[in-house]
């Protein structure tokens, strides 16, 4: 009776496109040229949206904002892998995911501008609202996936979170449920190397975040999160697997938060220029551009055109968002319960009175 091996595990890392845009054709997912261009355009649109959001915040036109720069490949490619009937559950940095699924841009600006109406997701849009408390959306996605299974839907659920979220009990309890009930959910961890000022190496002692799946008895894998092809391939496979009833997957997308944590943050306090420069070389947009150039899918004129188009869309969204009327007193009271209880009616009256007399 020597020490018997009772479990063996392996974690792999998928890279399809390297930093220079060289592609491993054997691994490349089947994507038409049109789709590849679409992914590129969505990344450009997302980055434009993001840049303008940061600018708006500086001008005091929206509130604290969490930029997504650098994470476009992960967000766009994963969202693009969703079927129409699938759902996604975001954390708070997933603007590019919403954008890829064609969410009204102006609503995103409204939300970041401090208005709940930006979170009134359109009825036919399969996504949940932003979750600010880190990791807390994970059990919701799991419960939703459970409902899909309960109903016999052929639907998968994709839930986004960061490296920091893996330290939270919500992550643990959610993933464990998913494993036990074999739920159709894909856990997409955007390991952007930082949780505010904490590098992922000090968030956990585990070498990869992907290996955390071993604790829950399902597959975990790493992918190069700055490569649209890797992300698309891994997420698509995992969603298909989920829909076929083969259970959950944890995907760690290794990427980088190129900007500050939020507009209130100053990342230069805790990370080096060298690191930033190093990761700038792996910019997901540059990388796809290099590939497209080589594949004859890109020229300067094309880039110019889509950049202008993106800026137009974004500008229009800003205008729309800013032309929305300020929410009213009743908006404070109307949405807490299905009906407005008497105490809230009275409180609304109280507020109205105090506002009137002020005039």
């Amino acid at each position, binding site marked *: 009776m020597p020490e018997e091996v009772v479990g063996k595990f392996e974690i792999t890392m998928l890279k399809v496109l390297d930093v220079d845009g060289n592609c491993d054709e054997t691994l490349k997912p089947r994507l038409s040229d049109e789709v590849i261009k679409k992914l590129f355009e969505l990344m450009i649109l997302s980055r434009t949206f993001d840049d303008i959001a940061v600018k708006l915040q500086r001008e005091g036109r929206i509130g604290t904002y969490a930029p997504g720069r650098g994470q476009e490949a992960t967000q766009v490619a994963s969202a693009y892998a969703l079927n129409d009937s699938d759902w996604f559950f975001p954390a708070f940095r997933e603007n590019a995911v919403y954008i890829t699924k064609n969410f009204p841009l102006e609503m995103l600006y409204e939300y970041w501008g401090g208005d*709940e*109406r930006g*979170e*009134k*997701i359109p*009825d036919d849009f399969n996504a*949940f*609202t932003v*979750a600010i*408390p880190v990791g*807390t959306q*994970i*059990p*919701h*996605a*799991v*419960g*939703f*996936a*459970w*409902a*899909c299974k*309960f*109903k016999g839907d052929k639907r998968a659920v994709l839930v986004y979170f960061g490296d920091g979220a893996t330290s939270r*009990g*919500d992550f643990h*309890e*959610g993933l*464990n*449920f998913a494993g*036990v*009930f074999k739920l159709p959910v894909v856990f997409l961890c955007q390991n952007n190397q930082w949780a505010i000022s904490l590098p992922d190496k000090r968030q956990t002692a585990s070498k990869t975040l992907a290996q955390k799946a071993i604790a829950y008895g399902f597959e975990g894998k790493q992918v190069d999160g700055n490569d649209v092809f890797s992300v698309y391939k891994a997420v698509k496979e995992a969603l298909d697997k989920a829909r076929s009833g083969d259970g959950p997957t944890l995907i760690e997308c290794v990427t980088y938060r190129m900007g500050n944590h939020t507009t209130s943050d100053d990342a230069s306090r805790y990370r080096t220029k060298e690191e930033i420069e190093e990761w700038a070389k792996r910019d997901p947009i540059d990388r796809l551009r290099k590939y497209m150039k080589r594949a004859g899918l890109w020229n300067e004129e094309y880039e110019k055109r889509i950049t202008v188009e993106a800026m137009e869309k974004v500008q229009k969204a800003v205008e729309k968002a800013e032309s929305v009327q300020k929410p009213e007193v009743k*908006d404070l009271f109307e*949405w*807490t*319960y*299905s009906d407005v*209880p*008497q*105490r809230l009616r009275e409180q609304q009256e109280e507020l109205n009175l105090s506002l009137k007399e002020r005039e």
Partner: protein
Amino acid sequence: MVQLTIVQAVKFALEQEMERDSDVLVLGEDVGINGGVFRATEGLFEKFGDNRVVDTPLSETGIVGAAIGLALYGLRPVAEIQFDGFLYSAFDQLISHAGRIRNRSRGRFHVPLVIRVPYGGGIRAPEHHSDSPESYLVHTPGIKVVTPSTPYDTKGLLISAIRDPDPVIFLEPKRIYRAIREDVPEEDYVVPLGEAKTIRAGNDVTLISWGAMVRQAMAAAEKLKGKIDVEVIDLRSLSPIDVETVTKSVAKTGRVVTVHEAPRTCGLGAEITALINERVFLSLKAPVERVTGFDVPFPLYKLEDYYLPSINRIIKGIEKVASF
């Protein structure tokens, strides 16, 4: 009519609602083949199968968080948290999410879930098995809180809770799970959320309570019969509170005692005092008296009789306001 205890009424309501609506499902620790540690889900597993009566991992955040996800989809999850003291680890999901999702999404989403929690002391239980967490919950916007004190109300309130579009915490007074047996209609009926019940008419003092304390309150009132004429209100719905029933009674009696097991400070008794103060101040003939658990952790059971409001303490409270 069937003769049922409170815990049987829970089961009866669950069973009927599960029959009526195939989107109702029960989840929690040991709710399946074991029928729940209090047997409140006994037989449901056998009847509805493991798809609708689901044993979960030992994971309160997971249970409440998953219930939110199930409810978002449109199902009607009824989760059991095994004991009061284990609800705290799900507070974040309750406070940050269950209570805010409708508001945050401007009505696009809502979470019609029920969390059943056996609560309160008096059963010689281990630590963390005797808490009364209602004050935390009532302070939290967006969730409703109810607790029955009779088998009839148990069935009617639980059915209301399951059908309600908002998240409802259903506190079950475990101490009296089997203390009363009464006639409960077999057919479907509801006791509306938000309505208190005056269970004893009286002119001198208003005695307000809920859950297991209602029986203590009634006993105290009966003992004072002939001396002080006590009106007893079973609050039933803790959030929203039925202010009207309360203030109407106080307008008549001018004297009030509230009774609850939870610690006094910032307890629901304080809110009732404040509401009465704000609304029927001029009717008040005496300060509102609170007979409550003390501001200490619920003790191990050798001291629990000292901790819990006794009939004697309630009587003293009534006498105090009556003679003010």
